[in-house]
């Protein structure tokens, strides 16, 4: 060592620097990191952004215009009523009655609120259990809805509405004992439609198979015999 220190010429010092300094080699992962960092990521297609912008603009326009577009409403009044009654039945299945009351106790209140007086009303038996009765507002009419449940758990809704101009269609009528209501299917539900005076009556259920329909007809008879709706005012 001392020999080297003594020899202190520029040339010797330069040689020492080249020979004695540790040469550090780059870690292998550094090369990988650099190559990965320098590799360009796959670019999005040029058309993608304008396409997305156009789609987003179109969607906003559709959302803005949709509320003012004319709605497709069934021209057939029976169909309109049935659709409204089925919606009400579906709502009752999902969330229960809004203002469920017990019959016959609540009849005076129900008559006042619905505009339909029930001079006789079916309050359930061994096959159909009464669930709730409530006033409803369907197709711009006040009415009454009574919900029942059978022993298999099927919900059956009876709805009575003032329906002066409603005509029960002949071609869908079915004979059930002495009555001939129309059997209308909508949205996976079966509805029996008939009139009692100026009141339109609807019985709705999810009983749609041929066996179920026969039972549904039995329920119709029980309710039809025992229920008499009339406009209250």
């Amino acid at each position, binding site marked *: *060592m*001392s020999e080297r*220190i003594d020899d*202190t010429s*520029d040339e010797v*010092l*330069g040689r*020492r*620097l*080249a020979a*004695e*300094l*540790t*040469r*550090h*080699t*780059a*870690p292998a992962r*550094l*090369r990988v*990191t*650099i*190559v990965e*960092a*320098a590799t360009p990521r796959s670019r999005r297609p040029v058309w993608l952004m304008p396409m997305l912008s156009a789609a987003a603009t179109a969607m906003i326009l559709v959302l803005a215009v949709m509320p003012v577009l004319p709605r497709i409403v069934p021209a057939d009044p029976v169909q309109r009523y049935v659709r409204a009654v089925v919606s009400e039945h579906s709502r009752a299945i999902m969330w229960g009655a809004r203002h469920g009351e017990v019959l016959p106790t609540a009849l005076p209140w129900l008559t006042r609120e619905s505009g339909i007086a029930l001079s006789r009303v079916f309050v359930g038996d061994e096959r159909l259990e009464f669930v709730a009765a409530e006033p409803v507002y369907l197709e711009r009419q006040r009415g009454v809805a009574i919900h029942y449940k059978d022993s298999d758990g099927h919900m059956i809704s009876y709805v009575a509405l003032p329906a002066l101009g409603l005509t029960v269609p002949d071609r869908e009528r079915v004979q059930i004992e002495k009555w001939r209501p129309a059997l209308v299917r909508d949205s996976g539900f079966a509805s029996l439609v008939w009139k009692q005076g100026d009141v339109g009556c609807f019985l709705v259920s999810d009983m749609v198979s041929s066996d179920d329909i026969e039972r549904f007809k039995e329920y119709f008879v029980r309710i039809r015999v025992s229920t008499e709706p009339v406009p209250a005012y």
Partner: protein
Amino acid sequence: MPDGGDFRQQALAHLDALYNFALYLCRKPAEADDLVQETYLRAFRFEARFQPGTHLRAWLFQILRNTFLTFYRVREREAAVAEDGVPDWDVPMFHDAPEETGGVMDTHTDLERALHRLPEDFRTVLLLAEVEGLPLEEVARVMVCPVGTVKSRIFRAKERLRALLRDYEKK
């Protein structure tokens, strides 16, 4: 001019030399990693500025040193405003560098210890000219100064180095 793939291959051939130089500048392996990576990213980004026929190795050294000085100055500024007024040299040179950088590189010989005590510009001329064997013209290009200045810095750097080695010898 080589195409992108060739250029990268040629540039990566100098990885070990650049890492060695970076480690002698930073002294911390983690910072040297970041410095070399940043150097390559800049080189690839500004590949079009490289003049064919010139020394690629020198161009890369120049980018590395400029990058080092840029971040070194930032670190100096940050250290100068440390809350307790004491310069904090442990502040990482790169902001996303891990706080604990794995320690400072070991110095095994008096020569290495003496080299680390030299100012950066003296250390750089010695590393480029004597260790990496770059011609003085290339060193001048890296340092962005005339060849005469490089010669004078080498002379003065060696003088300082000799003095430091003598001190170590006495101890």
